[in-house]
């Protein structure tokens, strides 16, 4: 056996083994010795982010639009256009005048000619509103209920071609409605109201909670137990937003100013189902809440439907009650295959961004930004699939790990095993040591976890990009249960002393024995600059590959044709040329929109 393998390696000729007791993976000699550098910015396009003073308004209130524009050294002449779109009707009103005909931000029509400006950098400037440097006119909110989008465009000097657009979603509401206690019958939350989630709001008794597109929910801060939207095993959620009208679950109160919110303000969205986990009990209780029939999950129904969440942003959620006992922005516990989760953003989550406890539910098009802990966390027997997942951390707010996967903390060999299938990942770390766990790798499998991870870009993590922790987890590679194919590692191990400046330093090579063929599959591992456009422009990042990126090479595998995966995503990372996070997401770092104290 051993001789056979050696022979095959000799025949292969170009292959070398990475250091370690056993081969980790096969890579070409060229790939193995290539020096690893750091992640850099590769686009010189203008970047921009904008925000209004708050999220929801009543008709007649005044609005101020602020923004930061960074030309990134580009001194081209621009024109600036700002408008508000009523996403119910699609009608645009150009700011500051409010007319339906296009004007630039100074009020010039196309006939008059847009004013050409050279922006040398505007930081936290008032773009439109009272006392503003650019357009000092106040903007009054019309009596048009529902979600509106504020858009600022940087156009070329002709005013015809949009070079860059930034978005901010606001709501116009009649008033606020408080949600407390249980929801026991079908209920619809309409987008002409703002909702305050106060305490544990449990959907149960076969009720369906429908949330209209463009609805804002505010998790009240300071309540104990924390304010959460809890979808119990006997309830369902139908929160189906759209790109133009996402559903935004945030914290505090409708009138709280932008920039005042903090991680951990409220509890988050918890979805519980009857699909199995590997806790050796018929049911288990979700962490972070009081035990009751409402907080139980687990069972035998692998098809359980927790409901649909689509184009939903959850912000500032997650309350740590005690070590390992916390809520997160999005939690699926025991949710089954009929559950739908796509186009979701977790923004400033305390603890994890997205967490799965057991279950079989799938998700795609997920954005994890600035989680305090991990970006994708799974444990207790999760067997779902994920495609198109991007995680971004920043050094000011820190975080821990890209993926943290456990089989079970209690019993590393508990069954059913945690064994998700993940395609198309982009994991961008902060480059700093973890805030609550010093070991902060990109992909971290431990406690017996199994996983299939294919087509990933893992970069800028303080610890190695891939970390397999401990013998029980290593065994899953050796016995061919954990498989990886198409992993680009670059600029990781930033805080790891004496890490080799090659592919070997990008993985924790002492523990990992990961070989093609007889000992598991680890294929197409590459230490190569992914050449992302601008992954570290935190408040306005662009994760798409730039020219010359290995992502664009035709060497990667394609996702399977099983009805869930987008089979055409035959590239590492969550993006190719389309930025599916545009418009409905928010990347603003706190420091970049910091409200005055």
């Amino acid at each position, binding site marked *: 056996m051993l001789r056979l393998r050696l022979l095959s390696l000799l025949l292969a000729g170009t292959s070398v083994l990475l250091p370690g007791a056993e081969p980790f993976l096969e890579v070409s000699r060229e790939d193995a010795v290539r020096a690893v550098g750091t992640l850099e910015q590769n686009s010189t396009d203008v970047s921009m982010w904008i925000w209004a003073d708050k999220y929801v308004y009543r008709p007649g209130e005044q609005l101020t639009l602020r923004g930061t524009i960074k030309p990134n050294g580009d001194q081209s002449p621009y024109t600036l256009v700002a408008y508000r779109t009523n996403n119910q009707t699609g009608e645009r009103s150009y700011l500051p005048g409010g007319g339906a005909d296009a004007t630039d931000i100074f009020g010039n029509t196309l006939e008059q000619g847009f004013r050409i400006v050279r922006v040398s950098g505007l930081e936290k400037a008032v773009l439109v509103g009272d006392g503003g440097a650019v357009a000092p006119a106040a903007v009054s909110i019309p009596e048009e209920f529902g979600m509106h989008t504020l858009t600022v465009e940087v156009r070329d000097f002709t005013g015809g071609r949009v070079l860059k657009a930034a978005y901010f979603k606001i709501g116009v509401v009649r008033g606020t409605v408080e949600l407390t206690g249980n929801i026991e019958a079908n209920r619809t939350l309409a987008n002409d109201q703002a909702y305050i989630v106060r305490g544990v709001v449990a959907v149960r008794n076969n009720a369906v909670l429908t949330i209209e597109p463009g609805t804002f929910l505010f998790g009240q801060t300071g309540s*104990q137990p924390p304010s959460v939207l809890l979808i119990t095993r006997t309830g369902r959620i139908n929160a189906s937003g759209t790109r133009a009208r996402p559903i935004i679950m945030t914290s505090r109160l409708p009138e709280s100013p932008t920039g005042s919110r903090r991680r951990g303000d409220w509890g988050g969205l918890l979805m519980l189902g009857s699909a199995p986990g590997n806790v050796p*009990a018929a049911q288990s209780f979700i962490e972070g809440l009081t035990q009751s029939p409402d907080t139980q999950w687990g069972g035998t129904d692998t098809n359980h439907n927790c409901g649909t969440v689509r184009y939903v942003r959850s912000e500032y959620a997650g309350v740590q009650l005690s070590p390992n006992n916390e809520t997160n922005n999005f939690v699926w516990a025991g949710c089954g295959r009929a559950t739908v989760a796509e186009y979701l953003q977790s923004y400033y989550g305390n603890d994890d961004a997205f967490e799965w406890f057991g279950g079989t539910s799938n998700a795609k098009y997920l954005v994890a930004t600035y989680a305090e802990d991990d970006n994708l966390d799974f444990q207790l027997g999760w067997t779902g699939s994920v495609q198109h997942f991007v995680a971004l951390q920043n050094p000011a707010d820190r975080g821990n790990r890209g993926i943290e996967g456990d089989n079970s903390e209690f019993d590393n060999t508990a069954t059913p095993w945690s064994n998700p299938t993940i395609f198309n990942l982009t994991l961008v770390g902060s480059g700093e040591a973890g805030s609550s766990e010093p070991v902060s790798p990109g992909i971290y499998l431990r406690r017996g976890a199994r996983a299939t991870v294919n087509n990933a870009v893992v970069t800028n993590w303080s610890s190695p990009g891939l970390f397999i922790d401990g013998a029980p987890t290593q065994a899953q590679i050796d016995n061919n249960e954990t498989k990886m194919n198409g992993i680009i590692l670059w600029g990781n191990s930033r*805080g790891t002393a004496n890490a080799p400046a090659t592919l070997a330093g990008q993985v924790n090579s002492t523990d990992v024995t990961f070989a093609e063929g007889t000992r598991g599959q680890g294929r197409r591992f590459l230490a190569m600059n992914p050449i992302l456009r601008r992954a570290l422009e935190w408040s306005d990042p662009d994760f798409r590959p730039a020219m010359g990126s290995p992502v664009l090479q035709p060497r990667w595998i394609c996702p399977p044709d099983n009805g869930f995966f987008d089979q055409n995503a035959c590239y590492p990372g969550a993006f190719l040329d389309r930025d599916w996070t545009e418009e409905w997401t928010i990347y603003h770092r706190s420091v970049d929109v910091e409200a005055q104290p």
Partner: protein
Amino acid sequence: MAQSPRNEGATGTVAGSAFDAASGAPVPLVKVTVKENPSFTIQTDTNGKFAIKLPPGTYTLTFAGANHMDAEVDQVIVTAGEVAEASTVLSPKGAVTTVEVVEKVGAVQSTAEASLAERKLSGSVSDAVSNEELRGGTASNAAAALEKVTGVSVVDNGFVYVRGLGERYSATQLNNAVIPTTEPERRVVPLDLFPAAMIDSIRILKTYSPDLPAEFSGGLVDMKTVEFPNKPVLKFSGNMGFNGVTTFNRFGTYPGGGRDVFGFDDGTRGLPAGIPDNRRLFQGQFTNQQLTDFGRLFPVNWEPTAVSSMRPNQSYSVTGGGTFGRLGLVGAVSFSNKPQLYDEQRRFYRTSGGRPIEFTRYDDFRDSVEQTRTGGVFNAAIRLTAANKLVFRNTLTHDSDKESRIIAGYEGGIDGDILTERLRWVERNLRSHSLEGEHAFSNLKSSILRWQFTYSRSTRNEPDLREVIRGKLPDGRFQFLQQSLSGQRFFNNLGDDIYEPQVEWGVPFYKGAFSGLFRAGFRATLRTRDFQARRFRYVPFQASNINLFAPSNQLFAPENIASNRFVLVETTRGTDRYDASMDVYAGFAMVDMAIGPKWRLVGGFRVEDANIQVTTIDPLVPGTQPARSSLVNRDPLPALNAIYALTRRQNLRFAYSQTLSRPDFRELSPFDFTNVVGGFNTVGNPDLRRTKIQNFDARWEWFLGGNQIIAASYFLKSFDDPIETTVQAVADFRQSFINADSARNQGIELEYRQNLGKWSKKLSQFALQSNFTYVNSRVTLPEEQALILTSKSRALVGQSPFLFNVIAEWVKPKWRSNSRFYVNSVSRRITDVGTFNLPDIYQERNTILDFVYQYNVTEDERWVVKFSAQNLTDNRYRWTQADLLWRQFQTGRTFEVGLSFSLFR
């Protein structure tokens, strides 16, 4: 002082008691006459006690009671200024013919013997520790003294397990009143609160009789504070010692308040005055500036410091009292300060492939605890007439733990090496005041009315627990970690009050072959508790602005508390405050009756109405609805004890009773709470029911005379719905409580105490005491628990199958010395239940060897020197899980020298 000691030279005192031979009850209103000089005569009081002053000489006393045969006690030697004891046992007149001449009881001289006599006559199975045994041993507090009693084990510094049954099944009474606990997570009082100098005797009742509270199963620890001496007493004692592990080692502490050394926080650790007490601190409620200001209000004091100087143990006490005409006064004050270093290793395990794997490894776990304890007792009694007596008793204890803890090691939850520093202060206070009256009515068939009103309050204050957790980076530096316990300041306090009025009426009866005592009584135990905690944490917002490697006092310096650096966040939970009450109204009727010369029956009924209410409310959110749970029960409880006198010196006893165990306040509260002691996250269960217990006992005892005894017992306890700790399936372990299906405990106890002079004259200076207990216990768990818990059927938690004690004593009167060796051994027991295929955690066998040497410097015992050596083998306290080390430490050997001086002889 009313009497000067010099005047006493002229006379001595004879004091004693009269007991009913059948029931063992003290007999009041018995006429005691000095045969040689009938002008000296007196009646026994409501407790059957008497005292007569007499000129020196040898006397014979005659006892004459209305319903009893006359009795005589001869050879009573009265010496000037001393108290001779002369107690006797009186046969009821109804018992007639077969009773031979009443035994002439010699003067009972030692309190140990009196204790045994009390046991012999007791209506229920009991064991006792007398004051003499307390003083003679190494025990510095009540808990330590009890370790040497048959079938008793003491867990975690002061929680008593009787016959291996956990604290849930033990109850404590102080001077016949229920006392509140100082521990929020526990239901019984830690007995190490009570300094030995304050305690007169401790009795462990192992079988139930209807006059006792129904929450009884393993046993009732009945403590009495110092009793009224018959002669003036004023005794000073001091002890100084060192511990092999602590005294010459680096000991951890931290800057505290000026009165720390006496056990009182001077306010240094209090919640700063500027922190609002009715609103939770969070952004939105308060502005960033306000929160910054709040964060800077707390003193910056996070770092443990080390003392390298010698830290001796010390303890001092003064006991004084006397009888002044009709007034008896006694008081005791004690103080001790004892540092102890615990140098531990700990491991935690998880499973993989059915085998344990190491999860957390703390090789360096240093806990330095400086414990102080202050106690005071003041009791006063006044005898209004021979038939009417009032007693006023006051007990106060106060203790503190000042703790500085450093842990270094690998933590599996964080997946890395960590370093934590924790500073802690716990202050407990317990006081109890009672007024008791006893009235004998000779015109009402010599019936006796006793009443007692007790108010007790305990408090526990744990202000400003501080902890910082750091994680090791690959470059070796330790960085502050943003963890839920890191950077926290935790405040909590508990208050427990009990009002307890009780009244009891007893009437003796004598009808042919039946004689005895009928008793009926009423007791209300009205208990309330309030508990409140506040938790705060410094959370780093924008960690990049802070040097997370700085020492803690720099890390939390005022300039680092700002809206873009460390922000003070309140993490007080909605469950951190609860109020609870338990009202128990109980009535009983029982009879203690001799049937002929051989049989004695003690039996009756008790009815208890209990109403428990627990209200958990978030005080920081106005308008929140409180969560309530309640448990209301009425229970009729029969009990019967039968005693058969095999011979004059041998008894056979049989007992049956039904008793209860009610869930504790905490266990009923529907919300989470973190066990302050162990850090375990624990949640109550509002659906808990009370446990019903059936108790069977059989015992044979042979009193060999003096303080010698041979006894053997068998017991069986059958539990219906026993409350057991369980673990819930959550992402992390969470402890809760359930009613298990059933449990059964059975066991045997053997006791042997004898002077070895019986075997050989040469050994007459040696005495041996030993006792041995074997308990077999089985809990049957509900089906669904079997999935999580590893053992489907196991012993009760805390249960050791084997316990034994051996005490060897060598008294050498010529040298005025007395030496004792103590061996105390407790076999392995489960301390934590194993879950998820991990085996149960056992504490391994502990065998402790102590030695005490006492030397009377002066013939009259005014000056006594005592030398003690504790833990001579330096026992290794060790816990294992699947034969793997789970926790271990050694407390080292302690050597102490004590000196005591009595002002009066």
